[in-house]
């Protein structure tokens, strides 16, 4: 194979894997563990991406003394200026990155918290649909809202590591940043799942009435889960916007949500390691298709469509053949359970 850049392939795969794994981990927490059928993952993802994109582009121009009324970041002058100014000041870039990670966590989480209110009293069907339509509305809003670039989106978002001249080193460092965030998400989710809250969540999923009768405040718990899950999804959106250095409304179609769903269904609902595995497998196939297709030279059928057909059928087939996924859900490790196991071993 000529021109197959193996290192570049692995870096781009791992980067995509890191971002999608955050999505699938949080989705697993919301849907697999606590039973909120979140079909609106893309809302929080999009909010995170757009917040960081808007914040960074506007602030960089403003702090460099450019008049943003005359040269807003979404028109051509703004993009050129951003290209010039974007990678001059490392401290500013990193500061903006931290600020936007923080803000998108808060805002996306808050939106998730608010959205939990109308959906509390209806079953999973209605919840799923309401969140799904929220996603479409966000896209319509972004398509027609001029300050964030309408249908063109925002371009030339300065990468926090943009000041590093060598692109390979830069990509690797950014990959490490993403994997660090993934590790953080995984740890937080793991701790949550193995805490008393995690067990309450499972009880809410299995039988809401019973959980309510046991004195658990189900609405509050659902709102909390949506807050945490959406917050981390917002961070994933931020990472995405800096990775692609551009955002546009058509990146946030509902298909993104189904991608994450396919990952958790393949990997196993309610199993965090499973969602990591699912994310790895699906992003690997995705990247391979993107890298291999130009070599095959098929023009009639676009590989993009084939990929989505595969994802859709995968969800259906896995649900019918093996609904527990590759790694089935395991009982939560509590000190009491461990003690019992040790006693049994003796």
């Amino acid at each position, binding site marked *: 194979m000529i021109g197959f850049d193996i290192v570049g392939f692995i870096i781009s795969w791992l980067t995509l894997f890191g971002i999608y794994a955050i999505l699938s981990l949080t989705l697993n927490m919301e849907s697999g563990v606590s039973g909120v059928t979140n079909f609106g993952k893309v809302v929080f993802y999009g909010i995170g991406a757009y917040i960081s994109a808007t914040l960074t582009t506007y602030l960089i121009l403003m702090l460099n003394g450019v008049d943003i009324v005359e040269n807003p970041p979404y028109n051509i002058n703004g993009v050129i200026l951003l290209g010039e100014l974007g990678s001059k000041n490392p401290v500013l870039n990193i500061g903006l990155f931290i600020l936007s990670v923080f803000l998108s966590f808060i805002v996306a989480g808050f939106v998730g918290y608010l959205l939990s209110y109308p959906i509390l009293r*209806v079953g999973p069907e209605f919840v799923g649909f309401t969140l799904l339509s929220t996603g479409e509305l966000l896209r319509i809003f972004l398509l027609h809202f001029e300050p964030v670039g309408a249908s063109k989106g925002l371009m030339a978002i300065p990468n926090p590591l943009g000041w590093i001249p060598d692109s390979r080193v830069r990509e690797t460092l950014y990959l490490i940043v993403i994997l660090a965030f993934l590790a953080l998400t995984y740890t937080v989710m793991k701790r949550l799942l193995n805490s008393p809250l995690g067990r309450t969540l499972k009880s809410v999923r299995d039988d809401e009435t019973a959980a309510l009768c046991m004195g658990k405040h189900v609405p509050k718990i659902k709102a909390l889960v949506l807050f945490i899950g959406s917050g981390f999804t917002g961070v994933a959106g931020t990472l995405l916007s800096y990775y692609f250095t551009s955002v546009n409304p058509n990146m946030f179609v509902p298909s993104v949500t189904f991608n994450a769903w396919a990952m958790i269904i393949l990997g196993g609902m309610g199993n965090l390691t499973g969602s990591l595995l699912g994310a790895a497998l699906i992003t690997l196939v995705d990247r391979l298709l993107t890298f291999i297709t130009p070599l095959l030279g098929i023009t009639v059928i*676009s590989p993009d469509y084939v990929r989505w057909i595969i994802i859709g059928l995968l969800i259906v087939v896995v649900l019918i053949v093996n609904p527990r996924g590759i790694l089935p859900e395991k009982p939560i490790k509590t000190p009491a359970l461990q003690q019992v196991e040790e006693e049994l071993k003796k």
Partner: protein
Amino acid sequence: MVNFLQYIFFYTVFSLPLTLSYRTTKVINFVHANFITYGAYTAVFLHGVLGNSSIVIAAFLAFVIVGGMAVLDNLLVFTQLQKRGSSPAMVMISSMGLWIAYRYLLYVLTDIMHFYTSKNFVSYGRITYSDIPSISLAEFNLSQAFIASMVATILVVSSLYLILEKTRMGRAMRAISDNATLAEISGIPRNLVINLTWFLCGGITAVGGVLWTSFSGAITPEAGDSMILQVFTIGFIGGLASLLRTSIGAIIIAFMENIGIAFLNTYLGVPVSFRPFLTFIALLTTLILFPPLGAGGGLPYRFRKRGLSQ
């Protein structure tokens, strides 16, 4: 005003089958969006590839094809899942998977057809049918789409009424939607009735899709998906149970989307493209103020002020 009536017809034809299928089979069916699109594309392919210009033939074929598609979905996916005892949420997720597969399958089909006929199927123009009479009332020229959808809506509503109220089949359907187990015990062939319901629902929705081709200026493979918000909101207003309330929902949403947005546009300068937001507000209002309490397994919480409950 004509648009308002026009949309009432469309929304009624699209959302009645949704309510009917949910209350009989308890599957929330996202493939409903594909039913609309596939109905429309049956007409488009007939027109573009075979040169058909009769709406009756198109509607009939769409009814059969999409009805068959719905039955296949039910046999291959939904029944299998329900047999395994999957939760309703799982069945819904599988319908979601089917939705995405069907949607991109249509894109592939349009690409293949484009390859053979070199016509643009991804954005197909309005189809003029030869067998719809054009009627002029006083000064009004009624468009083909208006006449066709009016006739079709009246046909659909009256035939649904007749089927549900006057035939054995309709009684069986209503019995299953009230209590499936009891109905099965009293000797109703449950699977047969459910399959027939799917066929009917898919077919009616597809006819709606065919009508859409005589109205919309650009038919795209996402025609049904862009309608899904409105159709499901209408279904929710009807609580996914009552056909009458669903029709009222269709009128409300059509009113908000046509007259409401025109009003806002004139007085507040809200762009017309923000039309779906009104529907979304209607959806949230329905969920908060008049929730279909406990629907789909939710809990009928009532939020009260603290003092009251003690």
